[in-house]
């Protein structure tokens, strides 16, 4: 039996969510093992798996055909195969229509559950016969399996409907394009069904076609399919009964096996070959075109780009040297040659629109930073000529992807996170609506803990065990110290439990399978007017957004150009800081106003006082800064790149630091290579730090072509396909061996590739980030109040909680922090004229922004004179007033917090104004006549004269005795943390310091001796367990003097897992480790710090 005797035309992958049980790669590999020459994976209502099937098939010498199962209005699924490009376009359009368009209420929808809204976003998608008819050209229809409309009718004995359906299919698709599909899975009764279908086919004069209807690659994957059935029906394996499959036969079969199964129907097998011959489409023929840009009359896109580039260069570059002109000219020529002008113009136009119409900061990063045209157009902020960045890394003629499609670079644009970024995204949708733009999908896969939990439920394991498992291992998978079996045992599942092996097997098999489609953090694909003919679109979970059915890697592999609109919290901070500075008449107003190479800024960075700063604020970064000693932007770029999992794996941190500090001699992998590698590695002292360097080395030493280098780049970043990386590594090794390099040299270079895989940082990217790190550091150093106010206004972001940021602001920048106040605070945090930072009302929990806006409006008309005045003129509810009083926001209108709490409960209603006026007057008169009287009436507050400062006690004016005592300091701090999650006052650790005589303050660690045993204590603000740190956990404890860091080795962590992950405050004892002014405690003993005065602080855990 040869591979040409049968073609598999109907299989489904796990992208037929909760139906298919194997990923596309597994299907292709199985097909190859079975010597199938062609394979069509038809997923339900989508071509989700098509790129991965195509790419793997191409690598394995198979032909991947394209098609899908289309859900019809009666809930049945009709398989269709794509014959040609028209068919593909029609299929994409049809799916897009079914997914995006609300159904008319008149359409009878049998797929919907009772009460389900046919207009709802998550409704089952379906196509009507009319839509099918309008998009039938270029498609071949099969009658389908037991989910198909024909077999469903037969199953109920309704032969006339079955015949009518086949007839209708003939009418819609044409008699030549319909096949009656037959499948056999060694089940009783199927021969009768095949006979009926054969009779039907004969009666309608259409051919029979045999398929496997495979839902999984190999029989062993049946367990996944059964588990998916349970998930789909919300039941357990024990209860699923006959919903489960009857056997394990729904797998791919070889030609020989199919011939044996259909020995009585050889024509059904033969027809698969005829159909395959008629299929003339693969994703190689996608025919995606670059977007075009409308230009003024008389201009071409090329001439227009040239004109605006030179105009912009005049503005942006102070001196346009001949070299600069030459570079711009060179780039423009290539851009035009590659027909890329439209893309540049679109990106330029978006940046211009964002900046000019919306005043939004926008900055390109990534490989676009290598382009002088991008720089002069204002797309990027880094001058590539100044930093000697090579344009060819961004765009070159020879860039061809592994799939044979052109490989185009993305432009990544950083925007302030939040509304401003959404504003830009919505503008793109608006410009290219309805089918010209969509977000790139993000395939959410089954992963460790949640998968095990879901499978535990399917297996009917007790909730308490699963809950305990989730609690114990809530913060991700740590396979380096404890395997899943042990995790389950520690969660209470006996090692001998009869279902444990099944749970382990299911968890293992599900790992990495697609679970559902999310949206990418910011990637958009543009194809003005007809993106839905390239790839189907569907609604995203966010209102007003659509996504394509492919993820970023698939889009890149197929040559689709993507623009990333990435929301960056720090961009929002910078934008707001600039605005706050402008409001106070200070510079800078934009990036370019920030002075370069400011020594004070670098001094601050060197001292690792970088809490709140972009990228270099983490514990790992701060511990490296004093050793790495960055002194300029390129140093900072190296610093940004160095503390990444890649370089840590590759053991590059220490050599680079040592070489920079003169403690180790600089070499270039091997003395024999110095001459060739020095130009590439000189700036990084012979250490391979950036992706670009890796690619250059591969070209220089291994003789990689541009295409091979591109393959290497993509393999290093393509997380889903470790086999791709293995292949290119083997190729690199072979090339190096061919050139007879020493084994040690080859090992070193190949090892570096492994280290770079998944984490490697491009140089241009690092420089863009370094620019943000420098800008934020400069602002922290020179515009600290504005910077911190903006940081607080853009939470959550970064590593530290607002409480920690405030403590840092006070400690390191000497900022005066003022408490939240109804008389002085705005909604957001602000900077007061004397440069004090005022906490905003947005930090008060439970307060509505609308009510605050109203309060601000009435306050602007006239300040509040008394507490009753405040109550009368504002719209706060009783709980809101209570919340304000509890955090001291009403202190300027009352003697103290409790006085305010007492008074706000006795608020007069609006219709009692007159009565209140007289009551107050009367009480005031009483006051004046008898000031010694203990006055505990509810009206006390109303008679207090208002003062300029708002503090009656401070004025010396008569202050009556209130029935409630003021809060103590610890009560105030507790109320602050309860109501604001931060305090403008002292750190709570100061309250308990006297009770911790044996505990060393964080600030004192630097003066203690290396190796000395110390105890540190404080609120846990960070718990980290880097995947590459062999299970080591890093804990940061904050006290009133700063942050102390502890290292916990895996063994201790496992023995105290819950104490470390659950206790809000800890006391850690261990040996002090000192290095270049950085102190860590190597934990030997960890106990909870249980003191009532310590409020629970937010911690940044395991990110």
């Amino acid at each position, binding site marked *: 039996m040869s591979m040409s005797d049968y073609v598999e035309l109907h299989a489904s992958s796990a992208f037929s969510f909760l139906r298919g049980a194997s990923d596309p790669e597994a299907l292709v590999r199985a097909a190859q093992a079975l010597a199938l020459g062609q394979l069509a994976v038809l997923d339900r209502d989508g071509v989700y798996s098509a790129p991965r099937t195509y790419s793997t098939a191409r690598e394995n010498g198979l032909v991947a055909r394209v098609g899908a199962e289309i859900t019809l209005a009666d809930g049945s699924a009709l398989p269709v195969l794509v014959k040609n490009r028209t068919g593909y376009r029609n299929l994409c359009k049809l799916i897009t229509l079914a997914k995006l368009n609300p159904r008319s209420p008149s359409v009878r929808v049998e797929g919907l559950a009772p009460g389900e809204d046919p207009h709802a976003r998550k409704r089952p998608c379906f196509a009507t016969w009319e839509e099918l008819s309008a998009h039938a050209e270029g498609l071949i229809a099969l009658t389908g399996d037991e989910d198909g409309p024909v077999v469903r009718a037969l199953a109920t004995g309704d032969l006339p409907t079955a015949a009518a359906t086949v007839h209708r299919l003939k009418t819609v698709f044409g008699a030549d394009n319909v096949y009656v599909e037959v499948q056999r899975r060694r089940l009783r009764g199927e021969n009768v069904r095949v006979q009926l279908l054969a009779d039907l086919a004969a009666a309608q004069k259409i051919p029979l076609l045999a398929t496997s209807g495979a839902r999984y690659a190999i029989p062993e994957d049946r367990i996944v399919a059964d588990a998916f059935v349970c998930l789909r029906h919300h039941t357990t394996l024990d209860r699923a009964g006959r919903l489960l499959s009857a056997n394990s*036969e729904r797998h791919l079969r070889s030609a020989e096996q199919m011939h044996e199964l259909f020995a009585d129907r050889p024509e059904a097998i033969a027809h698969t070959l005829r159909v395959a011959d008629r299929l003339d489409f693969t994703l190689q023929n996608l025919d995606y075109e670059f977007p075009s840009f409308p230009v003024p009359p008389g201009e071409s896109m090329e001439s227009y780009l040239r004109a605006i580039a030179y105009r912009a260069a005049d503005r942006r570059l102070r001196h346009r040297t001949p070299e600069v002109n030459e570079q711009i000219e060179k780039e423009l020529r290539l851009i035009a040659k590659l027909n890329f002008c439209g893309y540049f113009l679109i990106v330029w136009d978006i940046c211009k629109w964002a900046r000019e119409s919306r005043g939004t900061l926008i900055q390109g990063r990534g490989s676009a930073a290598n382009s002088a045209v991008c720089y002069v157009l204002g797309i990027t902020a880094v001058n590539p000529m100044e930093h000697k960045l090579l344009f060819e890394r961004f765009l070159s003629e020879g860039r061809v992807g592994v799939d044979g499609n052109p490989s185009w670079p993305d432009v990544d644009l950083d925007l302030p996170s939040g509304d401003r970024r959404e504003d830009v995204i919505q503008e793109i949708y608006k410009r290219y609506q309805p089918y010209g733009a969509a977000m790139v999908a993000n395939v959410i896969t089954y992963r460790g803990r949640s998968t095990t939990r879901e499978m535990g439920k399917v297996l009917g394991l007790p909730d308490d065990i699963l809950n305990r498992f989730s609690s114990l291992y809530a913060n991700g998978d740590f396979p380096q110290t404890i395997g899943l079996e042990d995790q389950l045992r520690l969660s209470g599942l006996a090692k001998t439990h*009869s279902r444990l092996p*099944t749970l382990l097997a299911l968890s293992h098999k599900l790992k990495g399978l697609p679970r559902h489609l999310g949206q990418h953090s910011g990637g958009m694909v543009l194809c003005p007017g007809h993106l839905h003919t390239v790839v189907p679109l569907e609604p995203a979970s966010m209102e007003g957004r659509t996504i394509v059915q492919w993820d970023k890697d698939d889009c890149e592999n197929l040559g689709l150009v993507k623009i990333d609109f990435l929301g960056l919290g720090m961009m929002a901070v910078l934008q707001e800081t600039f605005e706050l500075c402008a409001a106070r008449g200070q510079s800078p107003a934009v990036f370019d106003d920030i002075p370069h190479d400011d020594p004070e800024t670098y001094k601050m960075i060197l001292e690792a006082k970088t809490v709140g700063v972009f990228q270099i604020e983490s514990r790992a970064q701060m511990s490296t800064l004093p050793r790495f000693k960055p002194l300029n932007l390129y140093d900072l770029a190296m610093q940004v790149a160095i503390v990444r999992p890649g370089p840590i794996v590759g053991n590059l941190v220490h050599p680079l630091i040592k070489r920079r500090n003169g403690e180790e001699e600089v070499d270039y992998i091997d003395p024999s290579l110095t001459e060739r590698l020095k130009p590439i590695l000189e700036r990084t002292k012979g250490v391979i730090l950036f992706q670009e360097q890796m690619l250059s080395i591969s070209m220089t030493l291994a003789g990689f072509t541009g295409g091979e280098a591109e393959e290497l780049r993509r393999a290093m970043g393509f997380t889903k396909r470790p086999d791709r990386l293995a292949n290119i590594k083997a190729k690199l090794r072979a090339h190096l061996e061919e050139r007879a390099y020493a084994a040690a040299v080859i090992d070193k270079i190949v090892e570096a590739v492994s280290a770079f895989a998944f984490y490697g940082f491009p140089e241009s990217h690092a420089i863009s980030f370094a620019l943000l790190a420098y800008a934020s550091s400069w602002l922290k150093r020179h515009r600290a109040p504005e910077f911190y106010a903006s940081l607080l206004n853009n939470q959550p972001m970064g590593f530290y909680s607002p409480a920690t940021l405030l403590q840092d602001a006070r400690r390191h920048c000497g900022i005066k922090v003022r408490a939240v106040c109804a008389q002085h605070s705005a909604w957001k945090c602000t900077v007061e004229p004397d440069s004090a930072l005022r906490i905003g009302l947005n930090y008060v929990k439970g307060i509505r922004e609308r009510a605050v806006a109203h309060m601000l409006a009435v306050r602007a008309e006239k300040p509040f004179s008394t507490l009753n005045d405040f109550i009368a003129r504002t719209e706060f509810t009783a709980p809101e007033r209570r919340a304000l*009083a509890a955090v001291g926001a009403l202190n300027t209108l009352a003697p103290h917090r*409790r006085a305010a709490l007492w008074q706000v*409960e006795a608020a007069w209603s609006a219709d009692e104004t007159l009565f209140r006026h007289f009551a107050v007057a009367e009480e005031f008169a009483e006051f004046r006549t008898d000031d010694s009287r203990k006055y505990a009436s509810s009206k006390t507050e109303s008679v207090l004269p208002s003062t300029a400062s708002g503090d009656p006690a401070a004025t010396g004016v008569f202050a009556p005795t209130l*029935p409630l005592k003021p809060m103590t300091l610890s009560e105030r701090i507790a109320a602050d943390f309860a109501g604001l999650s931060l305090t403008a006052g002292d750190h709570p650790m100061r309250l308990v310091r006297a009770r911790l005589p044996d505990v060393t303050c964080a600030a004192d660690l630097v003066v203690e001796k290396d190796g000395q045993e110390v105890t540190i204590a404080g609120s846990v603000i960070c718990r980290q367990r880097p995947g590459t740190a062999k299970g080591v956990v890093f804990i940061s404890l904050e006290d009133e003097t700063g942050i102390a860091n502890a290292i916990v080795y895996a063994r201790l962590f496992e023995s105290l897992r819950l104490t470390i992950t659950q206790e809000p405050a800890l006391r850690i004892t261990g040996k002090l480790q000192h290095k270049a002014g950085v102190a860590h405690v190597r934990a030997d003993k960890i106990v909870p710090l249980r003191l009532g005065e310590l409020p629970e602080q937010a911690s940044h855990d395991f990110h």
Partner: protein
Amino acid sequence: MWDERVCRFILGHFPRPMFAVLHLADFPLQALLRTRADLDRQPVALLGDARREAPVIACNPLARSAGVELGLTGPQALARCAGLTLCLSVPTAEADAQAALLSVAFSLSPTVEATSPGVVTLDVSGHRADERESRLCGAMPRLVALGLQATVGLAATPLLAQYAARLAEPFLAVENHRTFLAPLPLATADPPAAVWPILTGWGLRTLGDLTDLSKADIAQRLGPAGLALWERAAGQTNRPLHPVVPAHSFSASYETEHEFETIEPILFVLRRFVDRLALDLANAALAAAALTLTLTCTDETTPSRRIRLPEPSTSADIFFRTLYTWLESLRTDNAIKRLHLEIEPVRALVRQQGLFDNTLVDAHGFADTLARATAIVGSGRVGTPFLEDSHRPDAFTLAAPADTLSPIEPTAPFWLRGLSLRRFRPPLPAHVALTGASPSSVWTNELHAVVAVAHGPYRISGDWWERAREWERDEWDVELVDGGVYRLVHETPAKAWYVEGEYD
């Protein structure tokens, strides 16, 4: 108008109202622990509900000494005490504990109010003042015997008695309500949830702190709920009791997610049941004529047994022995998750043998015989068979007969019908010779034949997730050279061949 002296005389002879409260601290936990012998001497904490972030609402002293505090989440509590057992409250255990508490209360006074779970209030005005303490304290050992630790408060109003009971160790009588109330924590007066944060915000800690504030101010700020709270805090609240009537039915149930896999924990719970029910019967001056114990297994089977006592009895020991005998012979395939014991009461000495009562000379003996029979054939082998929802042919379970017949399911699609199969029961073990994968000849005790035509295999399998139940079978339809069409089955993992039947 009565003379003042007469009035004084009458009032002097009417007893001053006096109330006692029996209080079970951490009632849900106590109720649970009295049914779980395995948790004795273990640190135990009770969670508020089944959510993962549910707080600890009660814990025993061992857990407390290990650092477990109320309000911690389960994982946080485990962080402090690694050996901690986290439990959820068991409503049936609480119902039984409450019934036990009421039983003891009715032995002290006929006027008993079930105030709240774990709290009963008794009118003890009729007790002699000098005997009250000794009588109330005398009830403590009875409660201990029922697995409960109670405290007792005595005061002139039900509310004060309740407050006293909460603080008692184990007995406290309130003499002066003002000095008694002032230092008590604010929570004693059960502030409404909406008011509680306001009071804590004001820094109030005790009832005295609250009553130091003017009643009018509180009323203005906190409304009727605040006013009622203030009055409670000041001891100004009085109310009549809402007495309950003693139980007329005598039953006890227990259901938990913690399944019973051995007999010992079942006996532990049953001992609690019979002790309490014996007390109930004694209170009502009745005796038990029969006991009915119904167990519910995890597979929803319900082995049940009604045991008629040779003569009416109120002895908890007799009840227990009777149940023990039956349970000893009982075997179930699955763990037990629910117990229900029902006692048929009779007046002890006036019962007459019924005309239609069974004629067994020795009912206990008959029950024992049945129980032994079950022990021999195995549990789960007695009952009505039901077809399982499974691809496995003939898969069935045995269960108690259904009360009503299920509606008939729609018939299978017409085209699935084939030849009728005459089943061999049991199927005939066979030896089968294969050519390739296909049967070529068959031998059984009755058949020796060469296969002329074989169709198959038809392959079905299931229960793959449970190794002990996993099954797989290949079926062949074979026509023998000597005539006849048979169904051959090859079963895995037994790796055995059978002739399952002959087609008509």
